[in-house]
């Protein structure tokens, strides 16, 4: 039996108090001194922990950071002195797309590597924009396999990056088709480069370590390869160097050892691919395409070119098309590209990696359903390092989470945990769908429910035309 894909994880506690959702306002001055303080009776022992925290405090920070919001102390206090409120610091986190809830759950997942679990049903909006406008399907009786407890144990999350032949040719029972090179990833996640404003020097080796721990690849700008230090030579199979339009190629020695390389889109990419292939014909070349106003069309055009093996489409960090007044969302652009390639009958020949706006594990599953073979992430990994998305760094101020000073063990460990728990959640979704392979999840829009379609099918027939979003 082949070795099962497994990511080793361990709990990596936060360095700073979490910015929790709830805060207790404590009006101490009217305390009855009843000696029966409800704080002591907190089911979660939060008050005692908080006192310990204050005792050890080195500097001012958030208090009551892990209150669970059960209101028990508020409602049991003899004098009714306590009040619970939403922590304003919590509400300020994020950028609108990366909401406080997304940031908090990412912190927890990076800490514990555990799938987030909660009770009392779903609490959110009925539907929303972007990835929140679709649901994944499930099956009542189909399991991924008949083995194991849930059948999930044998789900494969492997994907292949590269060009696949449309058909195989044989002569005298011998395969005559020359099989193109493929990069096999055990999980459909590639670690992408970070936007310049979020980058810091010690980040790159940590990203590489996370890629090594999880068996995936990290995209590193070749012009910054020095940041990898001595690790570079040892782990070239986990690195995909990105080569900008005007940048020179890596040395032939390095090209010879790489599995995947990414080049910027532009004129003369065919010549550049030939140049790379001349050194290492087994090296898979991906073309990075910005999803601006031309991005979708350009991706489809590239896919029709037999020289192109993989296309990495990139939106902005919030999943939006760039440089247009009314941007489309990554899921819709991916679906458009995927559908066009299906119509052309060439979808299986080229690999699409999609990046930008994939903030949660559920987004990964949905993006693959919409047509990506694999996804590329960066910002969720940064959030896993306790980034609050406060933009201080972007504005040139010090990072309140002191991310530049993290240790390699902490950084790589938290990012490894996050990828591991995303992998686990992908398996949960696929298990519910009764699907056994991530490769087959790609483009399975028939196994998803899109809000606009199901609304029309259900309510459109009953209530006429939809007039508002």
């Amino acid at each position, binding site marked *: 039996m082949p070795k099962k894909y497994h990511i080793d994880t361990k709990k990596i506690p936060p360095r700073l108090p979490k910015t929790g959702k709830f805060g207790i306002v404590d009006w101490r001055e009217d305390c009855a001194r009843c000696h029966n303080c409800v704080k002591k009776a907190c089911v979660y022992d939060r008050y005692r922990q908080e006192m310990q925290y204050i005792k050890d405090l080195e500097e001012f920070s958030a208090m009551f950071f892990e209150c669970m919001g*059960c209101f028990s102390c508020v409602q049991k206090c003899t004098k009714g002195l306590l009040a619970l409120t*939403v922590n304003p610091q919590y509400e300020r986190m994020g950028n609108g797309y990366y909401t406080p809830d997304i940031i908090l759950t990412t912190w927890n997942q990076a800490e514990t590597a555990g799938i987030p679990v909660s009770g009392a049903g*779903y609490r959110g909006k009925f539907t929303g924009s972007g990835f929140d406008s679709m649901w994944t*399907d499930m099956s*009542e009786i189909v399991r991924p396999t008949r083995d194991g407890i849930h059948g999930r144990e044998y789900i494969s999350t492997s994907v292949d990056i590269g060009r696949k032949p449309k058909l195989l040719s044989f002569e005298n029972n011998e395969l005559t088709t020359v099989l193109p090179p493929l990069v096999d990833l055990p999980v459909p996640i590639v670690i992408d480069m970070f936007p310049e404003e979020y980058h810091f020097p010690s980040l790159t080796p940590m990203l590489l370590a996370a890629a090594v721990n999880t068996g995936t690849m990290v995209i590193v700008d070749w012009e910054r390869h020095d940041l990898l230090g001595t690790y570079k030579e040892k782990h070239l199979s986990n690195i995909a160097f990105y080569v900008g339009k005007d940048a020179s190629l890596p040395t032939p020695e390095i090209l010879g050892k790489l599995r995947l390389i990414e080049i910027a889109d532009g004129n003369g990419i065919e010549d550049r691919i030939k140049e790379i292939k001349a050194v290492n014909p087994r090296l898979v070349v991906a073309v990075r395409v910005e999803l601006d106003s031309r991005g979708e069309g350009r991706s489809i055009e590239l896919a029709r070119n037999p020289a192109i093996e993989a296309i990495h489409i990139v939106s902005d960090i919030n999943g939006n098309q760039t440089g247009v007044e009314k941007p489309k969302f990554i899921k819709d652009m991916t679906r458009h590209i995927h559908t066009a390639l299906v119509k052309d009958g060439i979808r299986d020949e080229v690999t699409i990696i999609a990046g930008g706006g994939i903030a949660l594990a559920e987004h990964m599953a949905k993006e693959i359903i919409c047509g990506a073979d694999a996804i590329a992430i960066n910002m969720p990994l940064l959030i896993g390092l306790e980034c609050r998305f406060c933009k201080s760094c972007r504005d040139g101020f010090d990072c309140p989470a002191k991310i530049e000073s993290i240790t390699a063990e902490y950084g790589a460990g938290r990012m490894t945990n996050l990828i591991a728990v995303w992998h686990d*959640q992908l398996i949960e979704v696929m298990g519910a769908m009764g699907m056994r392979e991530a490769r087959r999840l790609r483009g399975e829009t028939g196994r998803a429910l899109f809000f606009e379609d199901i609304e029309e*099918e259900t309510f459109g027939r009953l209530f006429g035309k939809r007039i508002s979003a």
Partner: protein
Amino acid sequence: MEGSLARESALKEILPENTAKTLVPQAEVAREVRPAPPRYRNEIAKYIIRRSSDCTLCGRCARVCPNGVHVLKPGYKLFSAPHLNVCIGPSCRKTDHYCIDLCPNKALQMVENPMLKAMGDYRWTPDMLMATWRMAETGEPPAPEYGYEYETGASGGGFDRLRFRFPEKPPVDLLDDEIDTSIVLNRRGDGRPQVKIDVPWYGGGMSFGSVSNVVQLSKARAAVAFNTFTCTGEGGYMERMKPYDDHVITQIATGLFGVREETIQRVRIVEFKYAQGAKPGLGGHLLADKVTPAVARMRETVLGISLFSPFPFHSVYSIEDHQKHMDWIKHINRQTLIATKVSTPNDVDMVAVGSYSAGTHIVHLDGGYGGTGAAPDIAKKNIAMPIEYGIVKVHRFLTDEGIRDKVTLIASGGLRTPHDIAKAIALGADGVVVGTSELVALGCIRCSRCESGRGCPRGIATTDAELASDVDLEWGTQRIINLYSAWRKELVAILKRFGMRSVSELRGRTDLLMHLDYTNDVETHI
């Protein structure tokens, strides 16, 4: 295909005729509304009244307020904590007892409670939580003066965007007593009992382990009072449930925990749980901490070891397999009805028809947004369709297939109020299953921490003896009876406005609904 019913008659000779008859005397619980005050010292209120240092303790506010908001106990110099939950807020301004204006020193100030921001969520708004607590306390729908906007939540879709198109005047003037809210659960005409429940809802499956003994029993006793049902959930049948046998649905889930012939023979409905809305397609996982000696004994498992209920039934890969399961139960208990609980996948309509073909009496759809117990967040939000779509899809398909009146369609998964229930029925369900609302009646505040450590800090979803002792059986029973009573009154009021004598007249009447996001210019209904 009509299941195995034809073959069943031949087996009458070899099987006992009346296996469902319990030997335990059945408990009686009066359907009587009695006050069941909140159990916390400081009840959360929509408005708070602040008393400044200008107060001279003259006591006028306490004297004028007919609701008893201000408490100045005899012999005490200072006011006790006010009973803010009975304050009707700014609507009191129109009365002659508005304490804010009547205070001679203007020492009182009324503001909306800032804590409400931290309470509830899009689906269960603070108003909806407080209104449910109020109904559980009084047995009456909250008076309009309280200003609770509780008929819809703030989720922005589904039930929350549907409204009834009430006629200006009821077409027929009916008395409350003339309106029938009962529904029949067996429509197959297969010779099994015509089980009828007095209200178009029953209690959802919550196992011992996921909730406390007292919570399960409170639900069961309320079910007796309203001649409806409660469900054991997976994990078996407590000895203490036996006096309520006639109102208990026992569940057969994929782990088969606690499934015994003896318990199947006691009940009038057996439910096969294929999936559940909280975690469609994911099976169950009872954490080791919750496998206490009592839970382990009932489930016949080992203390402190996590229990997995696989997904789906390992023995079911087709409708024929499903039928085989039902045959098994129907032969063990020749009087029982079968309910089949499924989630809402894309092909839920086919699932429902298949289940009917296999011989089920009740198709129970559990939509993706529901659930009471712990579940992965990714499943709660993303997997399977919301129940609003599922009901329409299945009702439409069963109608097209000509079998709509041969099966009872029950919906669950995020139904919170009597208005949701009425809307679900108008969309095409016969009745509904409720769960979270019952827990809210018992004081659940939806903090979502059902799975953490010792379990629910409110003493509901826990097996921790100390925490569970917060809920008293008599009190819990009364709270749910009161809630049901208020709901029934609301439902009757809705039917009355439509001039309907029976809730069954409302089924599938989508022409009586409108959607706030649509043009609503379609004349026909399903």
